[in-house]
């Protein structure tokens, strides 16, 4: 397998696709947002329990490709327990990373840096962003 594919479909992405974290529909979520990719029919729902500006719980459900699902799974891990402002900052860093070539990913992104390679697959950027775009509508300024 070529290096680039190894880079995008590396162990951590495949692992989160096969065993996604927080892949559930929580009963006590007070926010829900949908991410749709009409081009491929992919659909991810993001559920958030947001209280006093803090993400107390975050989970997701839906049908999607490996890139979208692993990205959603890692997103929920990274967002759990953060406050909305921090969450928004992280979201912006992630979006910057997958959208701009030639820049070194912010170390704060941790395991999410696995998706830096999506820059080499422009048609897949929206897969990586599917859950994040949904979360953005929940974390808008003044939420919670």
């Amino acid at each position: 397998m070529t290096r680039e594919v190894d880079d995008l479909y590396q162990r951590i992405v495949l692992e989160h696709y096969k065993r996604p974290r927080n892949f559930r529909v929580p009963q006590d979520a007070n926010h829900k947002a949908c991410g749709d990719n009409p081009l491929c029919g992919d659909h991810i729902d993001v559920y958030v329990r947001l209280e006093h500006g803090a993400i107390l719980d975050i989970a997701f459900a839906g049908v999607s490709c490996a890139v979208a699902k692993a990205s959603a799974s890692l997103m929920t891990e990274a967002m759990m327990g953060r406050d909305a402002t921090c969450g928004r900052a992280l979201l912006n860093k992630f979006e910057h990373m997958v959208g701009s070539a030639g820049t070194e990913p912010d170390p704060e992104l941790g395991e999410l840096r696995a998706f830096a390679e999506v820059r080499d697959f422009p048609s897949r950027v929206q897969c990586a962003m599917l859950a994040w775009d949904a979360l953005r509508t929940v974390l808008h300024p003044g939420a919670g």
Partner: protein
Amino acid sequence: MDTLYVEEMRTRASGTLVARWRRRFPILRARVHGKPLVYLDNAATTQKPQAVIDAVSRFYAQDNANVHRGVHALSQRATDAFEAARSRVQVFLHAAAPAEIVFVRGATEAINLVAQSFARPLLVPGDEILVSAMEHHSNIVPWQQVCRQTGAVLKVVPINEAGEFRFSEYERLLGARTRLVAVTHVSNALGSVTDIARVSALAHAKGIPVLVDGAQAIAHVRVDVRALDCDFYVFSGHKCFGPTGIGVLYGKRERLEAMPPWQAGGDMVRSVSFDGTEYMPIPHRFEAGTPDIAGAIGLGAAVDFVSAIGLEAIAAHEQRLLHHASAGIGRIPGVRIVGTTRHKASILSFVMDGVHPHDIGSILDREGIAIRTGHHCAMPAMQHFGLPSGTARASFALYNTLEEVEQFVEGVRRVQEMFR
């Protein structure tokens, strides 16, 4: 003689032949991501032989002028070349006369032309148009639009689990209010070939005209519009080794002559005054404005290229590729082929348990293997099979080889191993 030996000799002979066909396509020497290109997205568009590239560039280098206008030499040369291309297409489709060949931008424009010029003036509320469940969006949406404009209703002939047109349902749906049948010759998503002569005979028994979407058939199946007895046949040049931006509407003379122009402008009128305008006879009535002259000439060269090889030889080779590929990926655990009729053109749609088609496509791409993934602009057909994410689709053309099929099968096998 030993049958295995005969088979081996046949395979070698056809390998040499295919190598010769293949050398005519310069792009097939390209490398992608450092790997030799394995182009298996021919249902989306085909590559172009040198003869087509040369015909287009020679026109611009030597003959370029507008058509049907000037008295000067170049204009006459351009007109002759443009009209010669029309005659080549006529012969290729076995149409009765060049006047039955209208140059358009592609199959999509041809269907819109028939929807607006033929169907729209005819339809009243409650009338019906019949399509199949495996149409490309371009043979659905123009009919939905004309239905909205007129109050007509779009009816759908279902397909079975193998992806075959259901003739029993078709006969039931052909009714007193049916005004037109519009079906695909070859399904772009499944590869199914529909028996168009039978579609036509059943419709004509009730006086109903038939339009055939030939976009996927034209480079793979011998098309004889008189044997098919369809009223309209449409295709795009770029799916038959020709340039993009040029396509064909074939219409039976009496149909075209009864139709008003669709688009209006220059080149489609005999005389214009503010009291009234007299239109040109067919086919020029439907070719308003300066056409894609170089595109038509390129398409003429493409049609010559295909005719010289022969569609029987092409179909035989492609069937061998299809069977080899189907058997190969059929042996991979978790892979399921979508569209399993025996009557298939060289399209292989498949899904893999637990793996999204996009992931299959991205991984194969990095191996230099180009396939299509998704709904293939045939969302209703995907819904029929309960596949909202669509399928992965390999589609073969005359220049693909058994070695390429093996690389493709090996690539799919590696994807399955990665996700296991």
